């Protein structure tokens, strides 16, 4: 069932077009030890656990290029992305202090209004380590002052 907010978002966001699909150029990332430790500390594990947590790649959604693709897919101000679903699929664990390459695609659907991001993490040699899919619901903001 489509909620009232979803109906409003569908009415207010641009119609889907050829531009609704974005594929970014490959992005180099690195699992810095100190950042992994901080991530572990905030997600309930020991910062000295010595591994890269499997949800860690989600932080790469905040990279400027990826964030730009998300904002472009949302299509305007007055909306917020709300995380609706997330999945990770691993073939190899990610190792600390290691370089990886990200492949990212963003697709916007109008009905219901969502942005779906697909990310693949591979080694520099091209071996796939992990895939992730992020589903963001586009929620219109009610910017009217509260009465």
């Amino acid at each position, binding site marked *: 069932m489509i909620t009232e907010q979803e109906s409003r978002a569908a009415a207010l966001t641009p119609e889907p077009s050829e531009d609704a699909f974005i594929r970014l150029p490959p992005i180099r990332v690195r699992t810095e030890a100190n950042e992994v430790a901080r991530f572990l500390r*905030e997600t309930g*594990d020991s910062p000295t656990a010595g591994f890269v947590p*499997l949800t860690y790649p*989600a*932080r790469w959604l*905040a990279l400027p290029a990826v964030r730009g693709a998300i904002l472009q897919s949302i299509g305007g101000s007055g909306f917020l992305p709300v995380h609706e*679903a997330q999945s990770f699929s691993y073939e190899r664990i990610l190792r600390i202090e290691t370089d990886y390459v990200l492949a990212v695609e963003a697709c916007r659907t109008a009905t219901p209004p969502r942005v779906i991001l697909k990310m693949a993490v591979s080694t520099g040699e091209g071996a796939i380590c992990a895939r992730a899919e992020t589903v963001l619901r586009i929620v219109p903001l009610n910017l009217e002052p509260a009465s």
Partner: protein
Amino acid sequence: MIEAEAKLAPADWPKAGDEIGARNFGPFPPEALARYAVISGDDNPLHLDPNAARAAGLAGPPVHGMLMLSCFEPLIMRWRRDLFIAQLSGKFLRPVLAGDGICVSGRVMRSRESPRPELVLRLVARARSNDLAIVGEAVVLYKIPDPLN
């Protein structure tokens, strides 16, 4: 190829219906959400600004869904250290507001020993109110134990 995959199940390989335990995480006060926003990069104002949360129809900033989803890995690995989590997925059903905590738990839904030892786990995260926040699933494989860990 799944890394460190083992072909034979151990004698104590879990069966369908086995509980994997439960564990509390949080509470997650606004400061915890601010720290997670910094380290995860998810600085969506929805999670940090009460006005933005209200504008989106919420009573207050919700805990990041990814922060809650991250709690399943320590739950699973505390249950058994000899597992490789090949898949983890979750749907965020109801927001858990800042200041609240969650209880994560799980159960073995499917177990097989061949052609490779594999379990499908049903995972849930509930707010203190018992509201269902996340329904998730994990596919885990038996991995060759690392003698160094």
